C-alpha cells in the first residue's frame, strides 16, 4: 500500500516494466519442476480478470471452480389437458433446483470456499425431466483457511456486483427459485364459437399466466424468507407456453437473496462524461473463438 492509503493500484503502473518482470520470472525454471508428489493441485476460476480485481479490492479471492447438477423426472401424461397447476412439474423444478444448489454448497465447502459468485444457472424443462446445472467460482476472504461460522452463500452475481453489494453493506445468502406450471383451461364450446374469427383476449390463458406468476413469485419469496433474507436481486424471469405443451403456461423465477449486514452505506457515484468516440472496440468473446 502506498502512503496515502490508496494502495499501489492508485499509482501509475509501468506496464512495460511489469511485463519485463514477468518475462524475467518466466525465464527461470519453474518451482513446479519439483517432483510430482510435492506439487499441489492448482486453483481454477472462471472469473474474468476484472472480476478478480473487484474481488481483491474488497479482500476476497477465488478458490476453485465448483458445480452442482440435478435432474428430476416429470411423470408421463401430466402435460395433457387438465385443471389448475401441474404440481408434479412445479415440484420437479423446485427439487432439481434445490438439489443442484445443495451440491454446489457441498463442493464449495469441500474446497474451502465461503461462497460462490458468478454462478451460471442453466435450467432446461423437457417433457419428462427438468435439468438444473449451476457452475460458479468458490471464493473466500484473502488468506482465510478452515471452516467459518457463517453459512456458505451461492450467488449468480458477478464479481463486480458482489463487490458493489459488499461496499454498500449487504451480503448475498443464496439462490431462491420459484416455478409454476399451470393448465390454460379449455374454453366452453359456446365461448369458442363466439370468439371464432375475432381478435379478443383469451382470458383462460391470461388467468393461467397470472396464476402461474403468483405461485412462482410467492415460492421464490418464501425461499428468500426461509434464508432470513431481506430481498431478492437480479431476478431472472421466464414465462410463456412450452413447445411440447401449448395449452399450459410456465412461469419460472430465480435470483440472489440478499440481507443487510449492519447498515446500508450510501454509494455516491461520481458522474463522468466520456469524451471518447462511442465506437465499440471489439467483441469480448472474439478472444475465445466462441
Amino acid at each position, binding site marked *: 500500500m502506498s502512503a496515502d492509503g490508496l494502495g499501489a*493500484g492508485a499509482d501509475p503502473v509501468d*506496464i512495460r516494466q511489469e511485463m519485463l518482470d514477468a518475462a524475467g520470472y518466466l525465464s527461470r525454471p519453474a518451482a513446479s519442476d519439483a517432483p510430482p508428489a510435492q506439487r499441489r493441485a492448482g486453483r481454477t476460476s472462471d472469473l474474468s480478470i476484472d472480476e478478480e480485481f473487484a474481488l481483491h479490492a474488497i479482500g476476497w479471492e477465488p478458490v476453485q471452480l465448483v458445480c452442482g447438477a440435478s435432474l428430476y*423426472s416429470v411423470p408421463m401424461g401430466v402435460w395433457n389437458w387438465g385443471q389448475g397447476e401441474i404440481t408434479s412439474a412445479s415440484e420437479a423444478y423446485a*427439487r432439481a433446483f434445490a438439489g443442484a444448489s445443495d451440491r454446489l454448497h457441498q463442493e464449495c465447502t469441500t474446497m474451502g470456499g465461503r461462497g460462490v459468485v458468478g454462478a451460471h444457472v442453466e435450467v432446461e424443462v423437457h417433457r419428462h425431466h427438468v435439468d438444473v446445472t449451476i457452475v460458479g467460482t468458490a471464493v473466500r476472504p484473502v488468506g482465510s483457511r478452515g471452516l467459518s461460522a457463517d453459512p456458505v452463500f451461492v450467488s449468480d452475481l458477478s464479481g463486480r456486483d458482489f463487490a458493489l453489494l459488499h461496499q454498500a453493506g449487504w451480503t448475498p445468502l443464496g439462490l431462491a427459485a420459484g416455478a409454476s406450471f399451470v393448465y390454460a383451461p379449455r374454453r366452453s364450446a359456446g365461448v369458442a364459437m363466439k370468439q371464432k374469427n375475432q381478435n379478443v383476449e383469451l382470458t383462460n390463458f391470461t388467468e393461467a399466466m397470472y396464476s402461474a406468476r403468483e405461485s412462482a413469485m410467492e415460492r421464490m419469496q418464501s425461499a428468500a424468507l426461509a434464508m432470513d433474507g431481506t430481498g431478492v436481486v437480479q431476478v431472472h424471469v421466464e414465462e410463456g407456453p412450452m413447445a411440447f405443451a401449448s395449452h399450459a403456461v410456465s412461469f419460472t423465477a430465480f435470483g440472489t437473496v440478499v440481507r443487510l449486514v449492519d447498515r446500508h452505506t450510501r454509494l455516491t457515484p461520481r458522474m463522468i462524461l466520456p469524451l471518447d468516440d462511442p465506437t465499440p472496440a471489439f467483441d469480448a468473446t472474439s478472444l*475465445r473463438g466462441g
Partner: protein
Amino acid sequence: MTTAPEPDDVPEAAARRFAGGAFTSGLTVPDFAACLQMGLEPVGFVQGFCVMQWQWYGMGSPYGTFGVPFQGSTSGYSQTWQCPHGFVSAEHRSWGQNYEQSWIEDAWRQGFVSAYDRMIEEATSVGAHGVVGVVDSSDRLSDLGVLEFRVQGTAVRVTDGPPPAGGIPWTTYLAGQRLAKSIEAGLAPVSIAATVSSVRVWAYCITEYLTEGSAGGWGYQSAAAEIEQMSEAHMAVRRIARQQVRTQLEGDSLRGASMITTERELGHGDAEVQCILRGNRVRRFKAFDPLPPPQPTVRLL
C-alpha cells in the same frame, strides 16, 4: 503441452514466410496497441492443425459385452446401478453404468496437443517469447467422422526481455488490455490449458423409465423423482474435467476458465455427456498489491 518443440518440423513455406520481414498478427487494433504499450512486439501469426478420424466407439466400447457391466477400463470414473426388480426379461435393463470414456479423452488430447505443439513449433521458429490471443477450436470437417483441431495466435517477443525457460514460448488466450491487467495483478501467463472429459450413461431400467416419465409397468409414477444416474453423470463429467486440468497446472492456477458441457441423447435414457474446460494457466510472479475499493461512476452519454 510442454514437450520441447522441433522447429525443423515447421513447413518450409511457413518458415520462408516468417523470414520475409513483415510481421503478421491476429490482433485487433486495440489489442495491437495494448501489446506495444506492454513492450510486446508481434512477430507472426502462428497456427497449428491436426485432423483426426473421429468415431464414438473405440477400444473399450460396451457394445458386444452382452449385458454385462463394462469392465474394459481399469482406470477412471465408473459407477454401476442394479435393477431392483429381479429378473424380468431379456430386454429388461438389469444394470446400468456410468463410465469415463478415456479413449475419447485421449483422442481429443492427442488432436489438441498435436495442434498446440505445431503452433509452438512455428512460434519457436520465429524466436517468439510467447503467443497471445490464442483461439482454439475443434470442428467436424464433414460427416465422415473427421474432426479438425485448430490452435492459433499471435507470436510475440518481449522487447529487451529474456527468452522463456527452455526456449518454449508461453501462451495465453488473453491479449491487449486483459493481458495487461493480468500482468498488473501479478499473474504471468504460462500456457493455455484445455481438457475434455466424457462420460457414457448406460441406463438401467429406473433411469430409462424416469427419463421417459413412466414407471415401466411397475405402478404409476405420480411424483417427481431424481434421475440419480443422470445427475451423477453431470456431476462426474465436470469433476473429471476439473481434476484433469488441475493436474496439468502443476501448482499454478487456471484463470478465466470456460466450462462447456453438452449432452448427446442416445435414446431410452442412454446418453453421452461431454465437458470441455479451458482457461489460462498463470503463475504469480509478484505479491498481490490490493487495489483501492473501486469508485462507482455513472456515465453521462
